[in-house]
């Protein structure tokens, strides 16, 4: 049986199952509802076809690719510095973190290593972009569940983080700051002091969210025991990041593998939660933002002096070979597989982005939940459309 007919077969069986399944209370007619591609809850163009029985989901199928921009192909005709500006736009909320694994992979191919100062600044910016990214999730989860205020708090406080990123890199959303062999520039004077103030704000924000969202009984009622992902299922679907840590899997590449950043020199903790439900995912991310704050703080205190750029040729030609580097990005594991033939441009770039795998679990996860829970589960999985479609 070919794959196409296999998929058709499964769709047919799902349809039959949907027809056969009835609500025991009051039989109502099945109905197919398109959530997306234009829907407020998918913040982008994800389409999820759900078959409903009343308000209960019988089958769900995510349809991706409405925003496919062909980055892997585009990267084949871009020089390495140009690719960096391109991949900023994959996960547009934590854009600096996108650059890091690519640059690390290219560095591995070129066999150069960034000087320690560059590594520490990279780590600080990496964690700052994680804060900028996940802070928005913390507020957005509220708005998906109907509370309008948290998301404004999130945008307000994310702005301070973005300002700090802008002060170093010049770009709020698309820093394009990482270079093979180091960083484009050094930190401006006074930045460390300001950033510490911003971190205090973020901590206050986390406290506010803990009260306003996580501590709210309605929020708990909406998220506890909703969308439970057992650890083995999550791993089987290739989930990563906070989504899998919320299922109790103690797995964080920042600690478990040498990513080439300064995380090993910092004192921090990997948060996990045993429940695996929507609430756990929210809670783990909340703790991770706090943890990132302490990490950035330690980075700021411990930045070694020295250059920020290693010796690299002005025109970058990466030697032939292949390398795969993955890092623990805000949304989960992001990896770049670069094949080089020794030219100005990479021969092939494969991007492993976290959201694609995280969303793949939806057909399994959404079966049998109510429509409102579809929204809360999708929100708690936290995907960025650019990270899914690339």
């Amino acid at each position: 049986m070919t794959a196409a007919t296999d998929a058709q077969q499964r769709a047919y069986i799902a349809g039959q199952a949907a027809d056969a399944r009835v609500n025991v209370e009051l039989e109502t007619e099945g109905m197919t509802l398109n959530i997306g591609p234009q829907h407020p809850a998918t913040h982008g163009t994800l389409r999820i076809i759900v078959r409903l029985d009343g308000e209960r989901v019988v089958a769900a199928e995510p349809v991706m690719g409405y925003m496919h921009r062909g980055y892997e192909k585009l990267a084949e005709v871009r020089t390495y510095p140009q690719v960096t500006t391109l991949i900023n736009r994959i996960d547009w909320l934590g854009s600096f973190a996108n650059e890091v694994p690519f640059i690390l992979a290219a560095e591995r191919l070129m066999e150069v290593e960034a000087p320690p100062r560059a590594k520490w600044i990279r780590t600080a910016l990496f964690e700052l972009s994680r804060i900028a990214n996940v802070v928005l999730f913390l507020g957005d989860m509220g708005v998906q569940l109907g509370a309008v205020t948290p998301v404004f708090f999130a945008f307000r406080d994310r702005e301070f983080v973005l300002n700090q990123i802008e002060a170093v890199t010049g770009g709020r959303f698309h820093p394009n700051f990482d270079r093979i062999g180091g960083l484009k520039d050094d930190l401006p004077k006074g930045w460390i002091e300001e950033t510490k103030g911003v971190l205090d704000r973020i901590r206050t924000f986390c406290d506010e969210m803990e009260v306003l969202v996580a501590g709210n009984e309605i929020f708990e009622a909406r998220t506890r025991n909703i969308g439970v992902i057992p650890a083995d299922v999550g791993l089987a679907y290739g989930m990563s990041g906070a989504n899998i840590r919320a299922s109790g899997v103690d797995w964080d590449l920042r600690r478990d593998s040498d990513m080439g950043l300064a995380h090993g020199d910092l004192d921090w903790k990997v948060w996990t939660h045993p429940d695996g439900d929507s609430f756990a995912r929210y809670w783990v991310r909340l703790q991770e933002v706090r943890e990132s704050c302490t990490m950035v703080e330690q980075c700021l205190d411990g930045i070694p002096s020295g250059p920020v750029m290693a010796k690299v040729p002005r025109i970058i030609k990466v030697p032939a070979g292949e390398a795969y580097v993955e890092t623990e990005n805000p949304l989960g594991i992001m990896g770049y597989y670069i094949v080089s033939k020794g030219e100005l441009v990479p021969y092939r770039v494969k991007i492993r982005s976290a959201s694609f795998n995280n969303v793949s679990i939806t057909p399994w996860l959404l079966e049998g939940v109510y429509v409102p829970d579809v929204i809360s589960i999708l929100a708690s999985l936290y995907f960025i459309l650019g990270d899914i479609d690339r």
Partner: protein
Amino acid sequence: MAALQGFDSLTSGDTVVAQNIAFGILAVVMIVAALRMVTTLNVVHAALYLVIVLAGAAGIFILLGAEFVGVTQVLVYIGAIVVLFLFGIMLTRGALGEDEEANIEKRRMAVLVGVLVLVVTGGAVLDSFGDAAVNRAAPSLTAEIGDSIFSQYIVPFEAVSVLLLAALIGAIVIARKD
């Protein structure tokens, strides 16, 4: 409501005219809506025509000085029964589409029966209550209705409550599928 307010401000002669005009409007609207209700092919439209008829009936009750009944009519009929109808129609989406009209013969018989009923009851009514007039000075008091329900009509009241309970349970038992 307008007719009610008129009680004090209008002279009695004017009141009667105003009441008759109000009645005329209500009656025409009700009958037209009722006719459309039984003839329309769209079930949802039929339910909405029913709303008009019921609202008109509430108006008639108020015209007759039976405020409490009028308000109850709005609360129970429009607020609950019609909503129940609409809800039922929308839940069974098979009933949403166009309803097919009954065959000609059946319709003809129904018209015949309807006209017969109208002629017989109308004739009887005209014959018996030739010139009896409705002349209630003021709307009936709600307190009075309450008193009589809980004294004189306490047994039927209790019976109705039991009936409601039985209907509630019955509806659940019928509609539930185990």
